[in-house]
């Protein structure tokens, strides 16, 4: 993975000093809350429901063992012993103290980490394929381009005050594992007519209140021009994106208002100034960055089949072990989705243990997936049984990757001040309903994505089953959609926004609703047909009818009269966490 040179280190150190000064001025009353807010957000610090939340950047999902141990230390020393992995491959701590935040950033800088631009209206963490560099279906390794874009976007002076947040993803494989079509800029690495690398460029995708599948504005952009072209897109957006309404400020609204062609023309007009300029990536710079992603010293092994073993191992191997381009190696997904734990949560002890596993069963590197799991990228096939034993002992071997219980969820209303709804207890209720492993494996790949509010941090729009928490007059309700697709193989390679099945439900009904959706699928599916394919084939109606025949959304008045409880409180949840 990328290691800092003197420049990288100096800039991060200077950023820590700047933030420490800003925090000091705020605490001394020389910066108002309104003035401090955008400054702290650009250093990952939110003020949340119970305590500040610090979101730490994990550039395109890559972590070293040393970084994991530092995160474990931060969880122990400054938080309550756990962190939360996000759908943007970052990690959040939900209980830090404002006064400690500069010290935390200084500690992170020691291991080449930071929280720069993990929030605020600026370019956020670049996301990518968690199997980059090891996937058999890879066309071009996206990681050097991710790093080049990371550096370009870090403190870009022109684009620090955009109309709204800005998210970029790069995918370099045949399968889209980065949900490229749902980003402000989505980049597919492709080969040109002479085999040279380049990008198919999409703009204006996104989730949120107005979900949109991105549009192609360039079929082929030569790789050297990546930074110059992205700069032109950002410039057109910065000048013309709406600033009068936060809900219409994303680039997708501008692209829609201008039309894709007119938007592309404006970008190309600006690009004439930069196309041959200093932002062109040089051979030397590409080689320097690429060298950081050179393959580790793999052993020369025969491509052996997976070893046999007890049923538990075989089940785990079937779901959590993924192919690798090097013979004799596999990638292993460590599940952070056991029932009863918030999806994506990881304790300090687990962080330390994953660091140990990464060194014992690999080359000291770990990946964060946007599905909120961790990946050991380079495990020898003959060591899989030993790894399984150790992962199992630390609660990281739930054999459910890609299955219904591998739920994507934002932290929700237990933590986030934006959320209307409590996504975490909901996830747990669904997981408890589907506790039969054989049945789960029979159901196959089903993505359930839960967002606590319209900001869609839980990516509900692209869930095969999507669940969205909404607030109606102070009550929590849940909208359910089906048929969302994020472009991955599990979604049949399709990109689609899920469609709502009908009126929303009370929290305690949602697990029933999911069960009815699954019953419908089981009744209608063809042999080996995935849930998402059945939805595609038969449409919404059979699912909708079966759900509403059995589960009636309560009238609001009844609900109020019944005094429906909102569920487990955050204080109770914290307590549970401290016990686990």
């Amino acid at each position, binding site marked *: 993975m990328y*290691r800092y*040179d*003197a*420049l990288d*280190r*100096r*800039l991060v*150190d*200077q950023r820590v*000093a*700047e933030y420490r*000064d*800003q925090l000091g*001025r705020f605490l001394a009353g*020389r910066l108002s809350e309104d*003035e401090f807010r*955008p*400054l702290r957000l650009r250093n990952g610090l939110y003020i949340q429901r119970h305590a500040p939340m610090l979101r730490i950047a994990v550039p395109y999902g890559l972590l070293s063992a040393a970084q994991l141990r530092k995160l474990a230390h931060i969880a122990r020393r400054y938080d309550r012993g756990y962190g939360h992995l996000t759908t943007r491959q970052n990690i959040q701590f939900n209980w830090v103290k404002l006064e400690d935040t500069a010290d935390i950033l200084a500690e992170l800088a020691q291991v080449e980490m930071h929280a720069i631009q993990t929030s605020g*209206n600026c370019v956020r963490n670049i996301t990518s394929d968690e199997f980059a560099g090891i996937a058999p279906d890879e066309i071009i390794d996206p990681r050097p381009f991710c790093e080049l874009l990371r*550096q*370009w976007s*870090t*403190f*870009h*002076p*022109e*684009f*620090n*005050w*955009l*109309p709204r947040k800005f998210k970029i993803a790069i995918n370099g494989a045949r399968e889209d594992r980065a949900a490229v079509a749902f980003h402000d800029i989505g980049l597919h690495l492709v080969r040109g007519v002479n085999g040279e690398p380049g990008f198919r460029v999409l703009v204006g995708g996104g989730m949120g209140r107005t979900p949109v599948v991105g549009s192609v504005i360039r079929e082929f952009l030569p790789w050297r021009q990546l*930074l110059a072209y992205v700069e032109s897109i950002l*410039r057109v957006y*910065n*000048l013309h994106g709406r*600033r*009068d309404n936060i809900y219409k400020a994303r680039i997708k609204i501008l692209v829609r208002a201008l039309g894709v062609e007119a938007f592309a023309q404006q970008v190309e007009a600006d690009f004439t*100034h930069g196309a041959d*300029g*200093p*932002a062109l*990536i*040089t051979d*030397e*710079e590409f080689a*320097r960055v690429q060298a950081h992603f050179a393959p580790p010293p793999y052993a020369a092994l025969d491509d052996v089949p997976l070893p046999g073993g007890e049923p538990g191992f075989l089940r785990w191997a079937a779901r959590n072990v993924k192919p690798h381009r090097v013979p004799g190696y596999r990638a292993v997904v460590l599940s952070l989705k056991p029932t009863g734990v918030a999806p994506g949560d990881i304790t300090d002890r687990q962080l330390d243990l994953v660091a140990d596993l990464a060194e014992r069963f690999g080359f000291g590197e770990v990946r964060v997936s946007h599905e909120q799991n961790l990946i050991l990228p380079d495990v020898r096939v003959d060591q899989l049984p030993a790894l399984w034993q150790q992962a199992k002992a630390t609660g990281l071997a739930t054999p459910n990757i890609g299955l219904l219980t591998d739920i994507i969820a934002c932290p929700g209303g237990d933590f986030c001040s934006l959320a209307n709804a409590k996504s975490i207890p909901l996830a747990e209720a669904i997981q408890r309903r589907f506790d039969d492993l054989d049945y789960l494996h029979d159901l196959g790949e089903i993505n359930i994505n839960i967002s606590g509010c319209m900001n869609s941090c839980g990516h509900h729009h692209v869930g095969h089953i999507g669940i969205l928490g909404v607030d109606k007059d102070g009550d929590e309700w849940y909208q359910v959609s089906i048929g969302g697709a994020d472009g991955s193989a599990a979604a049949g390679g399709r990109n689609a926004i899920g469609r709502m099945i009908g009126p929303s439900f009370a929290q305690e009904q949602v697990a029933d609703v999911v069960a009815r959706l699954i019953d419908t699928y089981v009744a209608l599916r063809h042999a080996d047909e995935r849930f998402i394919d059945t939805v595609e084939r038969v449409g919404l109606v059979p699912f909708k009818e079966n759900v509403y025949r059995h589960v009636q959304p309560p009238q609001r008045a009844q609900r109020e009269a019944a005094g429906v409880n909102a569920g487990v409180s955050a204080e109770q949840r914290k307590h549970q966490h401290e016990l686990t």
Partner: protein
Amino acid sequence: MNAPDTLLPLLPTSRVLTRDGVFTDDPWPLRATDARSDGSDSIDRIDDSEPALLPLAAYLAQPQPAVHGLWLAPDDDPALLATQLAGHLASVPLIAIQFPRVADGRGYSLAHLVRRLGYAGDLRAIGEVLVDQLFMMKRVGFSSFALRADQHDDDALAALRRYDDAYQAAFDQPLPAYRRGRRVQGASR
């Protein structure tokens, strides 16, 4: 276009900080004219004996070369800069770009465009100019800053010096880091 009320709270500031960290007195009164909206009114009433900052439409209507400076607001049409202003840039004594709110970042791109058109004179940030914006303003091409009156001098000077390098090309450093000599791996702190 944004509501014109974003222009109102601005007071003319005579004390400015230069990009080199020098505080100096350089008053330029702002001359709001009706010409901002339709380009037709009030223009011949502007008194050339008292140099002032004029909105874009009023500025373009002045006989050139003008003694007046140009006052750009974030919603000024960037296309007009290239088509109508480019020919006058050599004679403009001062261009001031207004920041009605810290969060309104259009001024950074306007500064980039003005510099890209070849403007070499003083480019001033006015309005909600706070110390924590100075470094990036300097990078995109601003050469002086009319800071909001409550900002501390020491904080401003520290902010200008906060970073001693950057990754990207910008006006203050026309080459990105990777075109300025070899970046050496492993040089430690």
